[in-house]
């Protein structure tokens, strides 16, 4: 029989803070990281990680000589390293022999190191300089975060970055789950990262017309868009046999993974595509549609996503939807793009463990097109499973199923 895939370590960084405990506490208590985000030209709101990530609790304790070998780090890599170090320490795997060859890394990123790229482009296009820093490519490439984590931890197994826009880290977790099911690895560090709060990237999002000027109000009337966040989340996934053999503490199980591709439009979601991914995830985890679930919605707060997701949830669950509860933590940590699926799965697992659904923030009142059993106040709820939705530009849909330990 195939081993179950267990979650034995958690780590994250977001605008809500450094570390899983501070993130979960903030989400549970209904605190938001969304603040004014002043830029050189124009302004907006965003959920920014405070302080330099290299001074973060785990990264700052790494011996300088180990860190030096990694070269220059964009915030993207620094976030990944901080979350990865936390997850590995949490799993009790620091310097564990299994890291060397039976461990893999799959990190999802929507984009590479934006700050490094923009610094280089500014030299070329704004100041007409001839050269850019020699480490521009290696420190900004989208593969850098996975490579940096492998170098820091001495992981010699399969290591790569995967990219599917806003579903990147959910895809990373799902594909990592299959690597363990297939027996290709005993342990996978899986998750995602994004560092998109730079002038160029932010302006790109703003120009697309999807960013809210005030805040993120998922499924609410008068919502006016998404709010960008940044950070990283890394989970230690482990085969059940490996986890039992070493007596690992278990946070939960990654029990199912469903995907679909709309193959319709680059930015407009497709109800049937979303529904297909949710159904596939239930099927993979062998979870009935009426099993009480905490549904961690993609819930971006945009005009198009929220009604499409609501329609898909009605289509899949029908009258059983009333047995479930829907949360949308992007209202707290913002849309962390490549990191968002993973941090939402982390927070969802914490909610399962603590039987506490984190409240959806900034809600102004019902939108008839988004009629869902939303959690608007901190609420005690004892679901059997977590259904965590991620839907990306390109129509790339991913749904993860979590269970308690």
């Amino acid at each position, binding site marked *: 029989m195939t081993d179950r895939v267990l979650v034995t370590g958690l780590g994250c960084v977001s605008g809500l803070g450094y570390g899983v405990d501070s993130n979960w506490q903030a989400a549970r208590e209904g605190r938001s990281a969304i603040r004014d985000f002043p830029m050189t030209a124009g302004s907006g709101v965003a959920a920014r990680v405070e302080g330099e990530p290299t001074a973060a609790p785990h990264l700052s304790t790494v011996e300088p000589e180990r*860190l030096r070998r990694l070269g220059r780090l964009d915030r993207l890599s620094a976030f990944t390293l901080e979350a990865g170090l936390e997850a590995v320490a949490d799993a009790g795997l620091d310097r564990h022999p299994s890291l060397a060859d039976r461990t893999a890394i799959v990190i999802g990123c929507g984009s590479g190191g934006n700050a490094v790229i923009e610094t280089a482009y500014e030299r070329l296009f704004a100041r007409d300089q001839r050269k850019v820093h020699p480490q521009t490519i290696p420190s900004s490439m989208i593969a850098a975060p996975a490579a940096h984590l492998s170098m820091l931890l001495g992981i010699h197994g399969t290591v790569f970055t995967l990219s599917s826009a806003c579903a990147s880290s959910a895809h990373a977790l799902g594909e990592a789950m299959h690597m363990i099911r297939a027996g290709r690895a005993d342990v996978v560090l899986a998750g995602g990262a994004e560092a998109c709060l730079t002038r160029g990237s932010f302006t790109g999002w703003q120009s697309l017309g999807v960013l809210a000027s005030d805040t993120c109000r998922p499924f609410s009337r008068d919502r006016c868009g998404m709010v960008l966040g940044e950070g990283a989340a890394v989970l230690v996934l482990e085969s059940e046999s490996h986890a039992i053999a070493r007596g690992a503490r278990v946070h939960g199980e990654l029990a199912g993974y469903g995907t679909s591709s709309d193959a319709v439009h680059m930015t407009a979601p497709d109800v049937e595509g979303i529904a297909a991914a949710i159904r596939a995830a239930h099927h993979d985890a062998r979870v009935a549609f009426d099993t009480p679930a905490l549904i961690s919605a993609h819930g971006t707060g945009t005009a198009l996503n929220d009604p499409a997701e609501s329609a898909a949830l009605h289509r899949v669950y029908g009258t059983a939807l009333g047995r479930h509860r829907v949360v949308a933590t992007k209202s707290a940590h913002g849309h962390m793009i490549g990191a968002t699926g993973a941090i939402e799965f982390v927070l969802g697992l914490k909610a399962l463990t603590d039987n506490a659904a984190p409240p959806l923030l900034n809600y102004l009142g019902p939108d008839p097109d988004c009629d869902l059993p939303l959690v608007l106040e901190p609420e005690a709820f004892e679901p059997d499973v977590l259904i965590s939705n991620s839907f990306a530009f390109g129509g790339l849909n991913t749904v993860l199923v979590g269970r308690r330990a």
Partner: protein
Amino acid sequence: MTYDDILALVAQETRLPPERLHPEATLATLDISSIDMVSMLFELEDRYGIEIQSEELTREMTLRQVFERIGVAVPQ
């Protein structure tokens, strides 16, 4: 451009603590990689307009020789 300026630049680009940057240490013993060396030369040109080709530096050179090539005297 003083010796201290260049020392700080080398420390920044190699991410080595300045106290380890002894004038008699070679680039090899300090384990300065070729990409860090190229980064150092980039910053040198960018900040001070000093152009040195990477082929002019070898891993066997001491920091003192590198500083001399740059044109700053190591204090006695």
